[in-house]
């Protein structure tokens, strides 16, 4: 356990080595929130209403802030694994006494904590200016708890895609498909409330809303019933993905080829 914590804290330190990178990231979340606030502002003005399917304009802006925080802070370990397979560095990662997947989990979490903290600070500041006071503390709490499950689900997904790199090396295209699924069915661009009922049902039967919609929606409109529903969904999908991931890992390990040398 101790070693994984050290890997995590090492990754945090590594992230802090470049303050310039930090600045760039905060500019991007600020820009995105600004654009989306404009879009939603126009939508609400045109439809001449205070709330669309129960969500107000400030709700929508804060919703987007949380979703974007997660999207920019979610693990991208498929790129790391793919990079390490391509340049052969994977040899060093594999010959240490730790679990390869947990190594990437710890390193990815180190990245995620730094990025999400920064996104949350900058994003909240921008959202506060554009949309007024932030959601209630219970919203923060529910968002934080479901953020953990969402992050783990993202990790499993990225790890599955990343392991494909052992065989096909390049995985960007898989990630793009996955990202678009999260954007639409996960409720990143539009909260699930905006979907027709049948599409909501389909979406909720898939893992994507638990990876994005859950923390963002509970953040702006905390509801106990929905909270438990989302937690249960996350638990089920995490269980499925963990089994899948360990199976795929055992298989792909044997197929690895290491480039160079």
């Amino acid at each position, binding site marked *: 356990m101790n070693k994984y914590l050290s890997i995590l804290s090492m990754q945090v330190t590594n992230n802090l080595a470049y303050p310039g990178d930090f600045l760039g990231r905060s500019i991007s979340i600020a820009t995105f929130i600004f654009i989306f606030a404009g879009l939603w502002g126009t939508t609400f003005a045109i439809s001449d209403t205070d709330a669309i399917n129960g969500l107000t304009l400030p709700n929508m802006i804060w919703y987007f802030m949380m979703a974007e925080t997660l999207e920019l802070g979610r693990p991208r370990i498929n790129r790391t694994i793919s990079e390490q397979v391509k*340049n*052969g560095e994977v040899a060093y990662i594999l010959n240490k*006494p730790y679990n390869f997947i947990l190594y990437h989990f710890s390193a990815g979490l180190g990245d995620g904590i730094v990025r999400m903290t920064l996104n949350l600070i900058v994003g909240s500041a921008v959202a506060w200016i554009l949309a007024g006071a932030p959601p209630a503390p219970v919203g923060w709490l529910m968002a934080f708890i479901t953020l953990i499950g969402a992050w783990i689900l993202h990790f499993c997904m990225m790890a599955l895609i990343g392991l494909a790199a052992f065989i096909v090396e390049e995985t960007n295209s898989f990630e793009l498909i996955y990202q678009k699924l999260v954007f639409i069915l996960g409720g990143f661009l539009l909260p699930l409330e905006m979907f027709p009922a049948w599409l909501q049902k389909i979406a909720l039967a898939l893992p994507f809303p638990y990876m994005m919609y859950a923390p963002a929606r509970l953040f702006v409109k905390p509801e106990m019933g929905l909270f438990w529903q989302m937690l249960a969904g996350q638990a089920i999908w995490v269980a499925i993905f963990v089994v899948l991931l360990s199976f795929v890992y055992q298989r792909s390990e044997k197929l690895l080829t290491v480039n160079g*040398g």
Partner: protein
Amino acid sequence: MPSIEVANLQKTFQTKRKAAGMRGSLRALFKPEYHTVEAVRGLSFQMEAGELLGFIGPNGAGKSTTIKILTGILHPTSGNAKVLGFVPWKDRQKLAYHIGTVFGQRPQLWYHLPAVDTFMLFGKIFELDDRETKKRIDLLAEAFDIRDLLETPVRKLSLGQRMRCEVAASLLHRPKLLLLDEPSIGLDVVAKQHIRDAIRKMSQEENVGVLLTSHDAGDLEALCRRVIIINHGQIVYEDKVSNLKRKFLTRKMVEVRYAEEVSPNFSIDGVEILKVGSYGVKLRFDTTKTPVDAVMAHLSEAGELVDITVSDPPLEEVIAKIYQDNKPGMRT
């Protein structure tokens, strides 16, 4: 107990073949043509505990693949191997506690952070307590002369400095066996010497076995007791380094420079004159056929010597010669 036992190890890769250019790429997309590369073909050898063994061969000979199989990263296609009693690809993590590895072309130290951070992290990963890690860092800092470098971000180190840190890092957990894949690649003479000295010292003091792949005859001479030469995935020569030297590194190249102009008349039996100028000469001879002192006497008689360079033929030449003389499977 031998620390490495390898029996009839084989590794084949399937690679996609593709004709040049866009048309070739398109064709490969629809009708991929695979061809099989036999990287390692029936390799068998043993290495004793604490032994210093050199593993040499040209590019693509299968050296790195063998090392990667021995560390458990690659699964062999067939054959057996035991490293410190473990089957590497089955017990990779357990084995990892007992071996250190350096792949010369790739960094294992965290690039943006000072090396000492990676050392501390490795301490945690290999489950040493902090006090022990610090003591160990202290010792390695001394042996590899890196005390002043440990707190500099790795990206600011020179290649030679970085490699010293890399090798030191691989020894942090007191491995019984060190697998070094081209540790001296790209280094200048001084840096090479530095690394070799430190490796030899650590190996002697802690009885660490070293399996080293290299292109550089200097690495072998300085470090290894025994050498295995492989080509095309097979052993073509296996012997003590001293024997290898006696047998093959006998053709010396000598270049001398004189203080004053000399008459360019060097006719010694069995000596091949490569270049003659009015201030110097470059020649080659076989030390087993022409006595060294006769050549030297002749050279110094001609005038006042101000400079002399003696060099061995490049290792590639030696390997090429060995490869001509020894068909695969033949052992000396």
